[in-house]
């Protein structure tokens, strides 16, 4: 809370605090299985999570650990990533580290008579350890306190009490399933020819909410745990499992469960709602109030004085975290060029800029044109009228009315005269860093922690010389014992060598130039040490209309592999890579991207990405890459794929700070489908200040 104790000794009368606020109803549910998906204990259910929920969970029973991350991608589709560690799965003395993905689709929403129904794939792209498919139905009774589930499963979920596959009536091929459970198969491939094949079995159960804190689950499991029984001494005494869960106010729960009459397990889950930041409207200071109009004389204003960096207007904007880079006043119109150094929501920058302009420009200036910039490029021009600001400051629908009255256009050329002394600029920063490598094939968590120094010198608009050096202090990224066995050029799989052979390292050291070649066009040239493993030259051109959902990009790079010590030297390997990209904003936060081109190992193919970005900037996405490298040559995983997250700093803290913490989780990093990791690709640089993003967060205009 930002409300600070300032006026010591004051009191507020007992009468003012004696009357309690009216209470709100609380609803609690405990729908998570030990696989992290909606379900009972081992068995899935016909439920889904609330749209957008990110569900973290973990489950332990003797010899088995599961770490799950699930995401309700759309109201009807959920996906899960799982990292499991299973002792003795492949025989005594062995440990299986398994990564797997699930997918579920709600094909029937619950009605008064009909249950909700989900069709799902469990472990569809991993090693088949938990490979199974199911259709589950769940009906809720007693004001949702009782949920009854029934379903049919195939694969591992058809291994106990199985019967001949009813889908065999459609084709005899459904009656057999070729792969032995858990034997591995073609890791990473979609074994579509096995889905819903082989014996099927029924499962079911119920979940009962005893009170707002406690719930009880009982299930009949169709999983025989065949491999665990054969190799790990697991005893399958009964198909019945039971669990007791305790729920917390934030939706988290702790569960103890009995598994097949022989094991006691523990489970914990935590739902994260990306829609819910720490503070809905942030804890930054209040914006400047709109003051009454004043004449030029009253403001001691003249056009010359405002052209310097120490004018009251510049100072007032600087106080808001906004740099005034240019201004031109012609008649009743002022055009300014600004750089937003503080607010994650550009709409908030525009709102504060407009109010500062209104308070510092004479009453004769009635129209404000604000040019937003990104890395020196003008990205959009927003036109706001003083009359509207004054009319809508406390208007009940002031946000949308101000959006409706604003004008948005491209700004390929700035129309604001540059303020003397804006350039050169020099920025620096010292900070700790965390470099994680999550869920690699031998260890769930590796990471380095250290110190990072960054500096950037900007001699003119659009030109940036920058670098970052890192000194790892503690960590275990260099402790991996997996040498690369790739038959492709080792463009990424020597990552352990980079960790082992480096100490003080240059993360990047580049010269970047950002420019506007024409209307709706954006350009970038980057040269130097581009990323930790490659240096060279990167060029990019982006076509992105200010008001449209579609963008097209092209990128050509010459990349040369850096020495393992990550200092100034290079290795022999070099390559020309490049991609043509299509970006599309589908609306409602769904962003699609397809990149077609040549990858670092010289392979040709395409990367398909889908991200869901919440209006507050929290982002969850997934991608996969298919290239002309065969699945065999690619190695473990068959093709590159992964999931990624970005959590904005302001989502976590409420403070007005740009940027966020992001990471990408791949089941395994191989050499096929590997793309150059150049910084500041144009699409993400440009889009924040364009219309789609402005509209998403326009509520912040008056904040």
């Amino acid at each position: 809370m930002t409300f600070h104790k300032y006026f010591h000794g004051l009191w507020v009368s007992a009468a003012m605090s004696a009357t309690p606020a009216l209470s709100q109803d609380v609803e609690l549910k405990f729908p998570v299985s030990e696989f992290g998906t909606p379900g009972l204990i081992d068995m899935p259910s016909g439920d889904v999570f609330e749209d957008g929920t990110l569900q973290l969970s973990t489950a332990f029973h003797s010899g088995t650990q599961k770490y799950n991350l699930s995401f309700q991608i759309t109201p009807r589709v959920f996906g899960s990533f799982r990292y499991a560690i299973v002792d003795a799965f492949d025989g005594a003395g062995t440990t299986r580290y398994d990564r797997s993905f699930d997918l579920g689709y709600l094909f029937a929403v619950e009605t008064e008579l009909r249950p909700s129904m989900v069709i799902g794939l469990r472990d569809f792209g991993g090693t088949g350890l938990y490979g199974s498919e199911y259709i589950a139905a769940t009906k809720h009774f007693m004001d949702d306190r009782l949920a009854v589930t029934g379903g049919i499963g195939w694969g591992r979920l058809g291994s106990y009490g199985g019967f001949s596959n009813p889908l065999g009536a459609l084709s005899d091929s459904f009656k057999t399933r070729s792969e032995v459970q858990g034997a591995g198969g073609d890791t990473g491939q979609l074994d579509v020819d096995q889905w819903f094949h082989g014996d099927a079995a029924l499962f079911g159960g119920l979940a009962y909410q005893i009170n707002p804190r406690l719930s009880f689950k009982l299930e009949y499991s169709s999983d025989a745990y065949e491999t665990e029984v054969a190799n790990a001494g697991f005893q399958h005494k009964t198909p019945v499992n039971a669990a007791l869960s305790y729920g917390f106010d934030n939706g988290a729960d702790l569960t103890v469960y009995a598994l097949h009459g022989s094991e006691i397990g523990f489970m914990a889950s935590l739902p994260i709602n990306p829609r819910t930041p720490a503070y809905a409207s942030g804890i930054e200071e209040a914006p400047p109030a709109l003051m009454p109009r004043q004449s030029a004389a009253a403001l001691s204003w003249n056009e010359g004085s405002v052209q310097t960096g120490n004018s009251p207007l510049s100072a007032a904007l600087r106080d808001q975290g906004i740099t005034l880079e240019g201004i031109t006043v012609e008649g009743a119109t002022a055009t300014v060029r600004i750089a937003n150094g503080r607010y994650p929501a550009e709409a908030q920058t525009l709102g504060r800029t407009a109010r500062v302009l209104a308070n510092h420009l004479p009453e004769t200036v009635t129209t404000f044109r604000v040019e937003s910039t990104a890395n020196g490029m003008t990205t959009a021009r927003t036109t706001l009228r003083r009359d509207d600001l004054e009319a809508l400051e406390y208007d009940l629908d002031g946000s949308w009315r101000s959006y409706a009255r604003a004008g948005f256009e491209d700004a390929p050329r700035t129309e604001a005269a540059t303020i003397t002394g804006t350039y050169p600029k020099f920025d620096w920063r010292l900070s700790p860093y965390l470099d994680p490598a999550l869920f690699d094939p031998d260890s769930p968590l590796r990471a380095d922690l250290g110190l990072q120094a960054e500096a950037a010198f900007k001699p003119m608009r659009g030109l940036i010389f920058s670098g970052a050096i890192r000194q790892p202090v503690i960590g275990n990224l260099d402790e991996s014992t997996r040498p690369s066995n790739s038959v492709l050029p080792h463009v990424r799989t020597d990552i352990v060598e980079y960790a082992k052979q480096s100490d003080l390292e240059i993360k990047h050291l580049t010269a970047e130039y950002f420019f506007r070649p024409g209307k709706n066009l954006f350009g970038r040239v980057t040269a130097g040490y581009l990323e930790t493993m490659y240096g060279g030259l990167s060029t990019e051109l982006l076509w992105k209309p200010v008001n449209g959902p579609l963008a097209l990009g092209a990128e050509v790079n010459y990349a040369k592999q850096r020495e393992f010590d990550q200092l100034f030297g290079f290795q022999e390997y070099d390559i020309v890579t490049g991609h043509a990209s299509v970006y599309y904003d589908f609306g409602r936060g769904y962003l699609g991207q397809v990149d077609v081109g040549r990858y670092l190992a010289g392979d040709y193919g395409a990367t398909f990405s889908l991200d869901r970005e919440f209006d507050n900037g929290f982002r969850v996405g997934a991608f996969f890459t298919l290239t002309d490298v065969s699945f065999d040559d690619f190695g473990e995983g068959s093709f590159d794929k992964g999931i990624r997250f970005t959590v904005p700093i302001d989502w976590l803290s409420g403070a007005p700070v740009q940027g966020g913490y992001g990471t990408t989780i791949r089941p395994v990093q191989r050499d096929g489908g590997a793309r150059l990791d150049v910084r500041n690709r144009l699409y993400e640089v440009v889009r924040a200040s364009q219309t789609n993003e402005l509209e998403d967060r326009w509520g912040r205009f008056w904040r």
Partner: protein
Amino acid sequence: MSVKTRIALLLGFVAVLSGCSSDPNQSALAQQFFNRSKGFEPGADFLAAQRSGAPGYVAGLQNGENAYTIFLRQTVNARGEETWISPDRLSLGMKDGMLIATRGFGDDQLAADARATRAALTSGRETVTERFVTLLTEGSTAETFAFRCQITREKQEPVQLSESYTADTELFYETCRNGQMAFRNLFWVERGTRTIVQSRQWVSTETGELALRLIKP
């Protein structure tokens, strides 16, 4: 270098370096994190209002322990909407004693229309009114909610505003519901002038209620 030494070094460096940046915003954030209890220096606007003898409120957040501050009126626009600012750079939008906006509270009220309630308080009538509140949602969009509010006159009560001035007031409850949210506002309305000298007004679900009392010199 041993692992323990490295950890100690790292923690030390993190504490020192979190505030190291050419960006004053970053540095301020780090300083705020490491020194949360430190008070804020009042802003220039607040000091100017103080010098001009602007009217003030003592304010307390009902959800926060020791969450008190004062607000001074900074400006009034052509529609009679007032902006009040605090030394710790929060602000309120007020109109005729009714809260119509907050800024900087974490979960703010963007705007409100409480004219019907104000009319009832002015006339002293027990009645049903409609109130509208626009909140800034978690997704940074504005959403307007309508409430049905029951105005009831509870009692007559003196409110001491200073050592030398006690206002003779009527206490009114405004009980509002809309199916999703419910809250109750309290208004102490001075008899005769019909000025709201003390109130407890709902801001948002997370922020809760703000208690305000006029400062009388």
